[in-house]
């Protein structure tokens, strides 16, 4: 079938099952925007290209489908570099199409020309510059295959204007076969057996659950493994929701701001079963002091993660879900044919963990009556969440509190920026998540600093009728930086003050078509949340004036061993050994 290159591109995206494109047109991508008028694909017009990228990420994290964004060349393309990097760090499948100047102009410093494939080489799984219009269906098929296969991640298709305007052969692309792209999905059976042996011998095992469990849709499989073995679970920042917080074996988040019990359980364990986790420095602290007596089983689909940080004793290379299932099967078989038994006899370990949980729970001053504690706001919203509510967040103190105090009970309900730590992620990511799951309520916990970076996308939410609820924990500071300056720079506060009233968040939100409230006292918190929950047709912004002095605890100072965890100042002994 003869089409234009632009038509072939849109038809190829339709063929991949794309329902939504987040984007913003401009010169070089202009020809591709014409066939969008005739397409079944919904286009969401953003106010800044960074918003398109983060929306696509939020969409993907909430639905496990690839997010698609389209922008023009030059500044359009560079504005979406941050989301690409963010998606690369958090293994989120994205397909980003950028317009490019005509092939004959490439390399001439033409208007809005930019070497975007060069720029994004290190932050995409792969990228393509389309040089032949007849390749379009095949390249699009390859792009979706690469983005979603193995460890997911972002890809980019750079699309020159003359290719869009030229005649193209459209055909249904064949199956994708790339010589240099082979993913091992099934774990080695000997390794599975070896892992099962280690588990049966262990006295202090822990499941270190990472984002890979969500990416491979392994929550149900994980639950079976946990219930069969009674091994406790920690869920990393990227894995919140992968295992229900309501389950007594979920110890919460490990890492720099993890719960005392999660951090210490990893530290003291004799067997660490890492599932789709990558031993990030925010989890391990000082790596040479991390879990010093633990043997390691490392299950991951990405061979480059194996041994990158910590040398494993057993490697389960394959899809996380398959590794978990095989491990469960091997454990059942082994115990039925021997005198070993499931669940594991690790009562002593369970008792120790319970002691830690009782002694060092997450805590803040719940009696405070004159000032709003940010944790209180999060807890109260969490208590009133409707079934399956999705929570997005920006990056900073509010993000850590959200991860700590929100009760996550189902997978793909937590949308945040982990590896990259991209401030401003929250608002657009929440909008993207709502587009993907219009049936679910979407809240975002945001900081005042983060909100100011991408708030303009509330205009998109109003114009496109994508209602989300944003709780700004407004402490008038870049709070996390302030916390570090407080603790490590002798309270010398450098360039962190933002002002609570500039901008006027209520007026600003209203100007963007949202309904807005300001909350100054603890008594107003619950009624305002309830009011917000009753509004379904408009976005809501609540400016919560929260305690400036509040810090995130526990905390493992950067580069320190995890044993040096600082708990909340209320736990009088401070540093615990």
């Amino acid at each position, binding site marked *: 079938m003869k089409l234009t290159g632009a038509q072939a591109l849109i038809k190829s995206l339709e063929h991949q099952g794309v329902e939504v494109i987040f984007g913003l047109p401009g010169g070089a991508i202009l020809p591709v925007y014409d066939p969008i008028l005739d397409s079944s694909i919904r286009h969401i017009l953003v106010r800044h290209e960074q918003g398109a990228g983060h929306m696509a990420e939020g969409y993907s994290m909430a639905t496990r489908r690839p997010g698609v964004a389209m922008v023009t060349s030059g500044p359009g393309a560079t504005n979406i570099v941050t989301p690409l990097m963010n998606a690369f760090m958090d293994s989120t499948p994205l397909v980003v199409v950028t317009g490019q100047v005509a092939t004959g102009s490439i390399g001439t410093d033409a208007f809005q020309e930019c070497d975007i*494939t*060069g720029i994004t*080489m*290190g932050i995409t*799984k*792969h990228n393509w*510059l389309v040089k032949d219009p007849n390749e379009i269906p095949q390249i699009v098929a390859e792009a979706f295959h*690469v983005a979603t296969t193995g460890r997911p991640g972002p890809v980019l298709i750079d699309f020159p204007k003359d290719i869009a305007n030229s005649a193209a052969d459209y055909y249904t692309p064949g199956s994708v076969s*790339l*010589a*240099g*792209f082979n993913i091992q999905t099934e774990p*080695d059976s*000997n*390794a599975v057996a*070896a892992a099962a042996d280690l588990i049966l011998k262990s006295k202090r095992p822990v499941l270190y659950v990472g984002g890979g469990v969500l990416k491979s849709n392994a929550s149900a499989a994980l639950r079976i493994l946990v219930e069969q073995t009674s091994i406790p679970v920690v869920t990393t920042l990227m894995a919140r929701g992968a295992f229900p917080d309501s389950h007594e074996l979920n110890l919460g988040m490990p890492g720099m701001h993890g719960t005392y019990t999660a951090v210490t359980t990893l530290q003291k364990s004799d067997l660490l079963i890492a599932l789709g986790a990558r031993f990030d420095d925010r989890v391990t602290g000082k790596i040479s002091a991390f879990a010093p007596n633990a043997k390691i089983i490392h299950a991951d689909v*990405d*061979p*480059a993660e*194996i*041994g*990158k940080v910590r*040398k*494993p*004793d*057993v*490697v389960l*290379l394959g899809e996380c879900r398959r590794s978990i299932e095989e491990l469960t099967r091997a454990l059942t078989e082994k115990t039925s044919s021997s005198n070993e038994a499931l669940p594991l006899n690790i009562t002593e370990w369970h008792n120790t963990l319970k002691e830690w949980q009782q002694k060092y729970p997450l805590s803040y001053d719940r009696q405070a009556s004159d000032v709003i504690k940010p944790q209180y706001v999060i807890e109260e919203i969490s208590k009133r969440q409707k079934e399956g509510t999705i929570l997005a967040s920006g990056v900073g103190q509010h993000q850590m509190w959200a991860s700590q105090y929100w009760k996550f009970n189902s997978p793909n309900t937590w949308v945040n920026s982990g590896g990259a730590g991209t401030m401003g992620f929250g608002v657009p990511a929440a909008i993207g998540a709502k587009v993907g799951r219009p049936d679910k309520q979407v809240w975002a916990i945001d900081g005042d600093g983060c909100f100011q970076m991408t708030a303009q996308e509330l205009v998109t939410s109003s114009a496109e009728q994508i209602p989300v609820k944003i709780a700004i924990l407004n402490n008038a500071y870049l709070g996390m930086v302030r916390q570090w300056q407080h603790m490590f720079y002798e309270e010398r506060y450098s360039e962190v003050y933002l002002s609570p009233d500039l901008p006027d968040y209520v007026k600003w939100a209203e100007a963007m078509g949202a309904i807005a409230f300001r909350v100054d006292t603890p008594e107003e918190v619950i009624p305002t949340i309830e009011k917000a929950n009753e509004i379904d047709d408009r976005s809501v912004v609540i400016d919560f004036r929260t305690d400036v002095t509040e810090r995130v605890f526990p905390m493992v100072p950067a580069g320190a061993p995890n044993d040096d965890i600082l708990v909340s100042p209320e736990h009088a002994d401070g540093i615990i050994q």
Partner: protein
Amino acid sequence: MKNSNHHIVSALVENRSGVLARIAGLFARRGFNIYSLAVAPTDDSKLSRVTIVVDVETSLLNQVVNQLNKLINVVEIQELSPLDAVERELLLATVQCSTGKRSEIIQIVTALGGEIVDADISSLTIEMSSTPEKLDTLEELLNSYGILKIQRTGRVALPRLGYLAETVADSELKLA
């Protein structure tokens, strides 16, 4: 030239524009210096073989090889141990040469297995293809006469027959 941290990485890659940049980018991202690099098409015109000599510790190299293996355009990759590989390199050098020294230089070059490929009244251009170590020897000897210009290609290598080294990625995974 001899350096215990030198490793040889041999990769079969798709013969397309931008592939070398992707490979070089991965080294640059980790701050590794590429000591030498040789690229040319193979018998299959769609593929090129790249031989990279890199100055890096073994553990770090494994990480780079694993990352390189993730590049879509890298079809196959292996680290070659010098013991299990056949290595060659080509050297071209123009050496200053007074009439009196001419036969002495020719003698050295011939003895080591090189050739004179160009000459004029005051200089000789020498070609030699050999192991990197032998080229080091020649270079050292020529230095005493005065090297005017020199170009070495960097080594190319193939695994020895019967010694096909396992890819680094594979050997890593056999940890279990």
